[in-house]
């Protein structure tokens, strides 16, 4: 067991337990904070998976951006903040989701994945090079291969800004 494994175990335990806390804590404010913890530990896992760019993005956007917006939303509706109860389906939901998790993970573990070979394959050298510096290659991919998706996601973000403004605006003003 090397250092990466240990870090992975630590991070995934944190992520897992804080995710559980997000769901089960009654105080909405605290559960939003737990969400930030989950995001950060998932970001840590991204670093372990040689995805440093995504790790940074994760911490910047999720932990820094989205979580803040959510906390903002919690504060806007603050008289509701403690009313974070579960509905009546809780037990049946719990059973089904547990079943879903068990089956899905059983299946994912037993599946024969066609794995990357970084030792003796024809692309081993290039792949090692790739994982040493993913950000460069990712930039190429985004702006070259998926340029259409990239550009149209900007259209999407524009549309969403207009949309959320239109939702919040009063229609008779």
């Amino acid at each position, binding site marked *: 067991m090397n250092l990466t494994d240990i870090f992975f175990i630590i991070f995934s335990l944190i992520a897992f337990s804080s995710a559980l806390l997000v769901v089960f804590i009654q105080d909405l404010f605290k559960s939003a904070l737990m969400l930030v913890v989950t995001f950060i530990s998932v970001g840590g896992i991204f670093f372990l998976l040689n995805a440093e760019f995504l790790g940074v993005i994760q911490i910047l956007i999720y932990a820094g951006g989205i979580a803040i917006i959510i906390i903002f939303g919690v504060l806007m509706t603050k008289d509701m903040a403690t009313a974070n109860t579960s509905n009546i389906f809780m037990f049946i939901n719990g059973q089904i989701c547990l079943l879903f998790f068990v089956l899905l993970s059983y299946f994912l573990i037993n599946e024969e994945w066609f794995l990357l070979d970084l030792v003796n394959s024809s692309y081993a050298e290039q792949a090692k090079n790739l994982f040493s510096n993913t950000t460069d290659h990712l930039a190429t991919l985004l702006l070259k291969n998926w340029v259409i998706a990239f550009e149209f996601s900007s259209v999407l973000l524009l549309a969403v800004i207009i949309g959320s403004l*239109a939702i919040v605006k009063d229609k008779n003003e």
Partner: protein
Amino acid sequence: MDVADLIYIGSEIIVAVTATLTLLMGIFSGRYIIVKIVSLLGILSGLIYAVGLWFVSTSYVFYNTIHANQLSVFFKILVLVTLLLVITGSYDYSKYFGKLRVEYLSLMMYSSVGMMLLPASNDFITAYISLELIALPLVAVIAMTKEEYSIEASLKFLIFSAISSAFLLYGIVLLYGFSGSTNFEVIAHILSNTNLDSNISIVLIAILFILGGVGFKVGIVPFYMWIPDVYEGAPTPVVAFLSIASKSVGFALLIKVFLIAYEFADWTFTISIIAALTMIVGNAGALLQDNTKRLLGYSGIAHAGYILIGIACFSQIGTSTGQVAVIFYLLTYAFTNIAAFYSLMNISLSTNSYSIQSYSGAFFNNKFASIVLMISFLSLIGLPPTSGFLGKLYLFNAAIKSELIWLVLFGVINSVFSAYYYLKVIKTLFDSDIEIIKYQTSRSYSLNIVLICALLGVLILGVYPDPFLRLLETSLSS
């Protein structure tokens, strides 16, 4: 990337630019009619561009993420024609949007950009972005009348869409994990060339997860549950747009996904069962409704079931017959649904009430809209000489060639029973026993023009469909 590739997404660019321009003009110009005309001109030029694109040869562009073929151009044209009709006809309705009517125009256009991109996409990431680009602006538009029901519809749509898109994305990731790629053609190639024995379950799970994300758009069992609620609450033009354009491009993606999936296994039986369930759920649900929009929601579910019959016969007779049937049905359904929703909207423009009782005696106040409503409902039942009949005939013909006789029989019986609830509405139109609700006689010329166009579409496709079918067949064979 070659800059010349941009010609293949020209109409998307035109419409997106028009949407932004509309918004800016809305800020700086007070005259709504001018803004509206500019946006209509923009859509029209996008449409003309798309028609021109029909004659450009097929190719893979943008590193295989876009497959520009005539089929995708066909869907572009369908979406833009729908958008043009929807926006033209909603001039008088837009009073319910208040000051937000410019945002309404703009967001509808942004959503249609996604709809145009989706049938052309050849890659799951692009397809996913397009799906979200379709859904998210519509979430905003649905809530825009700021009435209790429309806000609720918007929230339900958003949450349901989020859950199903999460599953869709999980499916994409799993399929990517199996094949190492997100490209449709690469995945199909790997599926047809790999010994699947050890990987059969991951492909099954991935494809069914993806089916969920797409099935949400088109409303098949068990992903239909948002439809009645959202159709009831959302503004009528948006519902018409959702039920036509969004559903059509959903089917375009479903066709693509199943062209891949049939490389892996024979899905005929599964799809047949889902089709049968969808038909029965839609028709049974519609029987008890007393809100016409909700009724049309359930009827839309039933029609998704009919269309699935066409997809069920993909594997057995070559895919072409099934595809022609599905696409022709979508074309007929587009005009029929525009006619149905807009004639309902025309009648209840002043009351904004869509309960069936509120239509009693409507014939005496608004003859033209009532006749259009009657013809469109007859088309939904599937009677000649309306286009609904030929659409069903093509589907059933394809299914019979694939020896799915039981499914055809089921579909025919379903369409007969569906006549019950459609006729219930038609009957109410001629009701005069109850005291007639006095409608404010508002003549809306733009709405009537749209109704005439839709009616012509319904009748021409029903009486002389040959040119359209020829076009479809050539576009599919290329």
